């Protein structure tokens, strides 16, 4: 299987090209050894996005399509220009809207494209330029439990582990030893975790004992140009000096990241094995609406914080000032215009749902006059799927996102914590409080 296959093409905004691009998508999926179901979903994603975007893209301006195959997923990116962009059909709450007599329902293609992909992102690149990214994941076998090592013996050392079999074993060991919410989703399908490492999407360090047995693991991946999300440390053997292994892993990770572009490390999944004093609390999130347990979110800088300017709604000014004061971070708060001026009719939210972790994560892609209703509809839909925890991420680099504070409050969201540098600037994490 090739390391990564990337195809780039520019086409005029003409629906006639959609079918042949679907053929390219099919060939790419075949070459990457994807299963028939992933292959079909990828073809559908590419064809339907092409068809839809050809209809809305500005005449005379080419669309740039990139199709990339990696071990763990197929990725399609569509760059285009559009002056009137309405992508409401991509919301998870979207339903087919009736067309005029005899026509297909409006937005049906967009709806199909959104449902066929595992996830999508929208980047507004300024002016009328946009980029949509849609991804289809490879399907992996589920976790087979493995027995944890009964004992291990020092000295312990670090390995930048790349062997797929050992990575798979490490992910399975972590899954067996730690609760699901502390493990990356890929640990549930450990072969995916090994592929993510091979694809360069995730970095990790393993700790091994004197005989080379796996003793611990820590993983990390970028969440922005400036910030890293990490998971762990995971320590496998019960009878070992857990604190020593954890510290070895954390020091190794910090040294690996020391002279990189990253300013900060963040974790929603810090384990009980985190070495005291290494990380600072950002705040807490509820783990389970029913149980009422809390999950600490932690961080540490990798260098001195040079400060930032962030947009701020009056609704959360006190929250932001108190948060930054407590964190001793310097931010210039720039007031946003309220109420926001909304020129677009339909808003668009990205949604990632994870039933096993009882978690839904929302992020705004496009503002629109229906934002308040759209938020409420998303909450209803997510609750309807039995998911209790709903988080919303607001990037304070964009004034229109910062101005969503009022709509979020009305929809039942509460600002919980600030994630420094997690977006283009800091992000605020809002959590939905279930109405009593």
């Amino acid at each position, binding site marked *: 299987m090739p390391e990564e296959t990337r195809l780039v093409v520019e086409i005029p905004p003409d629906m006639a090209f959609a079918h042949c691009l679907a053929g390219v998508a099919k060939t790419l999926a075949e070459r990457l050894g994807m299963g028939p179901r992933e292959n079909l979903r990828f073809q559908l994603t590419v064809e339907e996005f092409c068809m839809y975007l050809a209809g809305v893209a500005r005449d005379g301006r080419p669309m740039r399509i990139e199709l990339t195959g990696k071990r763990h997923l197929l990725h399609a990116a569509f760059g285009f220009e559009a002056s009137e962009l309405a992508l409401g059909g991509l919301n998870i709450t979207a339903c087919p809207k009736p067309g005029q007599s005899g026509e297909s329902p409006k937005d049906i293609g967009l709806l199909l494209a959104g449902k066929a992909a595992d996830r999508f992102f929208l980047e507004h690149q300024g002016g009328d330029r946009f980029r949509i990214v849609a991804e289809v994941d490879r399907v992996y076998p589920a976790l087979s439990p493995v027995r944890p090592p009964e004992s291990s013996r020092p000295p312990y050392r670090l390995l930048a582990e790349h062997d797929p079999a050992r990575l798979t074993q490490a992910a399975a060991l972590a899954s067996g030893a730690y609760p699901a919410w502390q493990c990356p989703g890929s640990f549930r399908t450990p072969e995916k975790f090994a592929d993510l490492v091979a694809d360069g999407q995730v970095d990790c360090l393993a700790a091994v004992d004197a005989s080379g047995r796996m003793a611990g693991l820590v993983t990390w991946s970028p969440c922005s140009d400036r910030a890293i999300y990490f998971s762990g440390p995971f320590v496998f053997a019960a009878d070992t000096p857990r604190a020593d292994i954890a510290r070895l892993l*954390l*020091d190794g990770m*910090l*040294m690996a990241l*020391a*002279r*990189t*572009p990253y300013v900060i490390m963040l974790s929603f999944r810090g384990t009980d094995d985190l070495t*005291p*004093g*290494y*990380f*600072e609390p950002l705040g807490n999130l509820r783990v389970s609406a029913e149980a009422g347990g809390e999950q600490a979110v932690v961080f*540490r*800088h*990798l*260098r*001195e*914080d*040079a*400060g930032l300017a962030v947009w701020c709604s009056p609704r959360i000014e006190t929250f932001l000032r108190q948060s930054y004061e407590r964190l*001793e*971070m*310097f931010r210039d708060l720039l007031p946003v215009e309220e109420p926001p001026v909304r020129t677009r009719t339909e808003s668009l939210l990205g949604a990632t749902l994870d039933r096993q972790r009882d978690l839904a994560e929302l992020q705004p892609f496009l503002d629109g006059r229906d934002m308040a209703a759209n938020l409420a509809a998303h909450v209803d839909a997510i609750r309807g799927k039995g998911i209790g925890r709903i988080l919303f991420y607001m990037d304070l680099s964009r004034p229109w996102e910062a101005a969503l504070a009022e709509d979020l409050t009305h929809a039942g969201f509460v600002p919980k914590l600030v994630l420094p540098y997690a977006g283009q600037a800091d992000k605020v994490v809002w959590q939905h409080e279930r109405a009593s």
Partner: protein
Amino acid sequence: MNGPLERIPAYVREFERYVPSRPDAALMRQYGVSRLVRLNNNENALGPPPSAREAVAAFDPARAAVYPSGDAYDLRHALAARFGKSPEQFLVGNGSCEVIASVIRALCAPGDAIVTADRTFAVYEWVARFSGIASRLVPLKNLALDPAAMHAAVTEGVRVVFVCNPNNPTGSWWNRAVLESFLRALDGRAMVVLDEAYREFVDDPDFPDGMEIMESHDNVLVFRTFSKMYGLAGFRVGYLCGSLEATDIIRRTQIAYSVNVLGQVAATAALADDAGHIAATRRMVADAKAFLGRECDALGLEYVCGQGNFAMVRTPVSDTLLYRRFMRQGIMVRTMTGFRFPNWIRVSLAPEAAMQAFATALRSALDAK
């Protein structure tokens, strides 16, 4: 489409620029303090020697309109007289950072590599990276440069070995025997830069003098600076000394006129009468080391205090958190995560009042946890 920017080499695009700290006034406003004790850059708190102060005070502002000597002529002659060498063996730069860049430009081509330690002065690694030259980073052993491992790392394609002696930030150093043994084993297969930025702080007779060593090893280049012992960091004057042939080659890659006239005047004057200044500085550093050692012992903190006007302290909380707590009290230290020493800080050794302020801030910062 960004046009020409799309063709920027990956090693430039992916390089993270160094972000210097803000000016003192801005930092004081930011942290709400009325004073700032700088213990982060290993500057000499005693300032420049009296001879340099007088030269700066006597400088005629009208000379600012005239270009400086393009190759620091007077300073090179003063250095030559001081060390008994030819002025042509000296190359003066805008701080030793400029000289590091000149060496790498002159001696390395794409595909070549440098060897240095993983936890040492970062600029060797940075310049190599943004120049497209590989860095082979050799782990420290017991907080010191590991001569055997560094020697083993010098394989095909390695052009320069950077040896920071004493090492910043650990203060460890190679004595004469270790250095001689390393150079003999290397047998001229790569140029060796002895970065002696802190050598004037060392009074141990077993500390090797690069100026002597280079007489018997023509692959040795010696770096020194006026930014540390001589208290002229604000003027940015550093230099290298090497064989006539090596210096001639390196000079070709350095921009002339890069060292300002006032820096040249002050550095030349500083050399003229430095014995008293060096002795006073060494006393101040020795006192500060003793003070810091007592404080760390009392607090149960691990510390490393080798040669040079700095020490490292291991902290029970993240170094970056401690930095912010220190700044709230007007004390500036260097976080060490970026040096690959997570949860250590580096502290410049300074007169008693500054060290006392540091100790007070340290206790307060640790109490806050």
